[in-house]
């Protein structure tokens, strides 16, 4: 694992894209295929489930380092990463473990799952004794299922495409879906033979993703060249019907077929060789339900009859990527949309069809469309998707052909009342905040937010937290209510689980309002007014 550890350290050390690609090129041109397959697996964001819980790793580490539990916790809070904390606390060692990555994973790590804690302990402490700091760090991350490194799959693919001299999109496609990190797989990833792309029947296509557009998009040319669709807030998915089987993939490339039996069953009526891009939405009585309802279904593998009844789902179909077993992504969107419509029309129509083609919103011009966009919140959507009618279906996030045109977020002014240290990059700073609004003369917490401040602002707030702590509860500090922030969020719904009685979606800090006093912060009443200002299916 020496070469792989070196790669990890190099990637971790630089924030320059070119250097990252160069480091990966170096690694993939020098590593054995068996190791490279695992490296690709890990770098592309996949990881085996946790093999040994961090709790046990921590227990063994503090036993070896002879430290009290609380001192470990303080250290962990400062470092912001359990694997790293353990690597920092273990006695120094300058040995280098030369076990190849695939041997380490296949023979030492994976077989440990489900073993007794004694067996696990012997294996883990033995491994630690053979490794230096960096190797322990990587090892801890692999074994605790927390391996992450700051590269996008796109960058990994760029490095590989340079080595193999193949188009990046082809490698991205080959790496979609389920595969085993074997030397054969790695070979096929870089294979010059481009004729046998259809071997994996479950393999999805890479998703086409869009950027957000600011302001009125009248610089996009004629409105009539663009199709506007409502931007739904559900689970972006790809539904595949090939050789009699249905596969549903989420955008995070999780196979979620079993979780949505109604979609699976509806997709069985599709002809073989069909792939649809769409959004899974919780839907009842002709309207979308709040996203939190859908979350109740995401978490569970076994879907009960009760939850099926309470939170039925549909698929809003956006696009057709494969028809008659042919990849049609290079056709223009207008043609793909027509084919999608006629495909869905041929299915048996039910009263509430599970597969439906998303509505195309017609407008005379951009300003007309801008007016229609104002209805977004009432409809439970985030705004519009704009798609150029003559565009192909592209790979990954792309500028130019698709745009998100979201409505402006809702905002309130709220008071900082709790703070906690962040993780990773912000591990030593108080960056995770809880904000409160007024309920009478009491401040009630209503949202947590982690992002939105500049590094300079973070330091100011961090210093404030350190100097104005009232009480400490574990990692959380309550602070003197003094700082006011403008918080943005996408949606509000009533909630019995929250003290404030409301839950907000995607809260984030918009601005540090150091011009405001806490008396200027908003009240819960004002937020409830916003909530009542538009449809709220949660109350239905």
């Amino acid at each position, binding site marked *: 694992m020496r070469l792989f550890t070196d790669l990890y350290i190099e990637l*971790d*050390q*630089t*924030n*320059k894209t070119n250097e990252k690609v160069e480091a990966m090129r170096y690694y993939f041109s020098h590593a054995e295929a068996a190791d490279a397959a695992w490296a690709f697996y890990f770098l592309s964001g996949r990881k085996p489930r946790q093999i040994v819980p961090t709790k046990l790793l921590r227990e063994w580490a503090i036993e070896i*380092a002879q*430290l*009290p539990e*609380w*001192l470990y916790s*303080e*250290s962990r809070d*400062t*470092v*912001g*990463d359990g694997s*790293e*904390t353990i690597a*920092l*606390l273990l006695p*120094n060692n300058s040995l280098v473990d030369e076990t190849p990555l695939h041997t380490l994973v296949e023979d030492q790590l994976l077989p440990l799952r489900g073993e007794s804690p004694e067996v696990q302990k012997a294996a883990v402490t033995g491994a630690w004794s053979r490794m230096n700091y960096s190797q322990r760090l990587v090892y801890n991350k692999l074994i605790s299922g927390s391996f992450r490194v700051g590269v996008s799959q796109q960058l990994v693919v760029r490095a590989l495409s340079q080595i193999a001299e193949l188009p990046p999109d082809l490698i991205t496609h080959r790496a979609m879906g389920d595969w085993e990190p074997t030397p054969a797989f790695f070979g096929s990833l870089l294979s010059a033979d481009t004729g046998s792309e259809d071997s994996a029947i479950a393999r999805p296509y890479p998703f086409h993703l869009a950027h957000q557009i600011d302001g009125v998009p009248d610089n996009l040319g004629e409105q009539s060249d663009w199709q506007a669709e409502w931007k739904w807030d559900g689970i972006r998915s790809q539904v595949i019907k090939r050789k009699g089987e249905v596969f549903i993939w989420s955008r995070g490339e999780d196979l979620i077929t079993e979780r949505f039996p109604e979609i699976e069953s509806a997709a069985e009526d599709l002809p073989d060789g069909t792939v649809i891009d769409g959004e899974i939405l919780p839907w009842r009585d002709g309207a979308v339900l709040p996203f939190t309802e859908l979350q109740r279904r995401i978490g569970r593998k076994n879907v009960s009859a009760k939850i099926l009844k309470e939170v039925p789902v549909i698929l809003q179909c956006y696009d057709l990527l494969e028809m008659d077993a042919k990849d049609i992504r290079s056709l223009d969107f207008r043609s793909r949309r027509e084919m999608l419509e006629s495909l869905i029309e041929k299915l048996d129509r039910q009263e509430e069809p599970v597969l439906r083609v998303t509505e195309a919103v017609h407008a005379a011009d951009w300003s007309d469309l801008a007016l229609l966009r104002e209805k977004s919140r009432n409809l439970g959507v985030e705004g519009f998707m704009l798609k150029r009618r003559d565009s192909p279906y592209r790979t990954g996030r792309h500028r130019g052909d698709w745009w998100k045109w979201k409505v402006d977020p809702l905002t309130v002014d709220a008071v900082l009342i709790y703070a906690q240290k962040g*993780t*990773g*990059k*912000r*591990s*030593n*700073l108080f960056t995770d905040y809880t904000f409160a609004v007024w309920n009478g003369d009491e401040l009630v917490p209503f949202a947590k937010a982690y992002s939105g401040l500049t*590094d300079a602002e973070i*330091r100011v707030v961090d210093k404030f937290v350190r100097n104005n702590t009232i009480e400490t509860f574990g990692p959380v500090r309550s602070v003197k209510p003094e700082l006011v922030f403008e918080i943005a969020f996408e949606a509000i719904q009533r909630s019995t689980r929250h003290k404030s009685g409301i839950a907000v979606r995607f809260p984030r800090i918009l601005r540090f309002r150091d011009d405001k006093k806490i008396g200027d912060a908003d009240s819960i009443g004002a937020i409830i007014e916003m909530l009542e200002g538009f449809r709220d299916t949660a109350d239905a």
Partner: protein
Amino acid sequence: MAMKRDGLITLTPRGLYCGQGGFYIDPWKPVDKAIVTHAHSDHAYMDSRSYLVASEGERLARIRLGDDAKISGLEYGKTVSLNGVKVSLHPAGHILGSAQVRIEHKGETWVVSGDYKLTPDPTCTSFEIVKCHNFITEATFGLPIYRWPPPSQVFSDIDLWWQRNIELGKASVIFAYSLGKAQRILSGVDPQLGPIFTHGAVERLTQAYRESGVAIPKTTYAGEVNGKAAFAGSLIVAPPSAQGSNWLRRFGPQSTAFASGWMIVRGARRQRAIDRGFVLSDHADWPELLSAIHTAEAENVYVTHGFSEEVVRYLNDTGGNAYPLKTRFVGDDADMSDEGSDVPTGK
């Protein structure tokens, strides 16, 4: 506060005070008589009537405290009597001229250690163990995750980084406190690799080190040189405040690094958005803190700045008598300014 009101040293709004002797140690407001442990800005404040510092650090104190300040030097180990209180200064190993202040009165002894490290450093006299009844220690890096690699390894890593940048035709810009850390780096790197340039704040203090008899390789003030080409392959030592400033543009393609104990944590390094972090500190790491506290054999240990609560708890759990002490010292604050107003304006 656990510190006794009638003890030899008390904590006052102006700083640590010895009432019997009539002097303060590292006061943060102007006083009549101040003993200053070292010239970092959180320990050496201007405008007191008179100062006592270790002779080794007199030049640095002069730069910090101004030409008009009344400064007396005292050799390490020599004792003076102030109102019947015996005072002596002992090397703290933190930076040039850094001192632990030992005071004694009627058989009661205190050591105010200021900032210190035990790791040998060629730019200053090494830390000396001073036994006492009451020991005041810092706790900047008072967690067990802070264990420093040997400096020889760190300097060879810095040389490797510099060498690689030379091959890529880049300048190597290393951020380090202009007082202490910068000179330690200059004396530790391999000067054969290429020319070394400095920021104005670093250059002035480096000159003061040379005048105090510390051997430091040749450096050139970057402001004297024009044209980016001159900087390719060179090493540039600059204070942390220069990071992200226009001043850096003159060096052309560059790799940046920060030398600090904080760099041992990956998140702290990423947060500074630099290319490399080198773990090099002028403060004691966890084992050094425990060793210094242990060997002082003090009955009472007072712990200031940094992870003081954690160190206090650990000491008390392991059979010691430790108390937190709320001073205004900041230890190794990554944004601490040692360069005063001496930041040259970018040209």
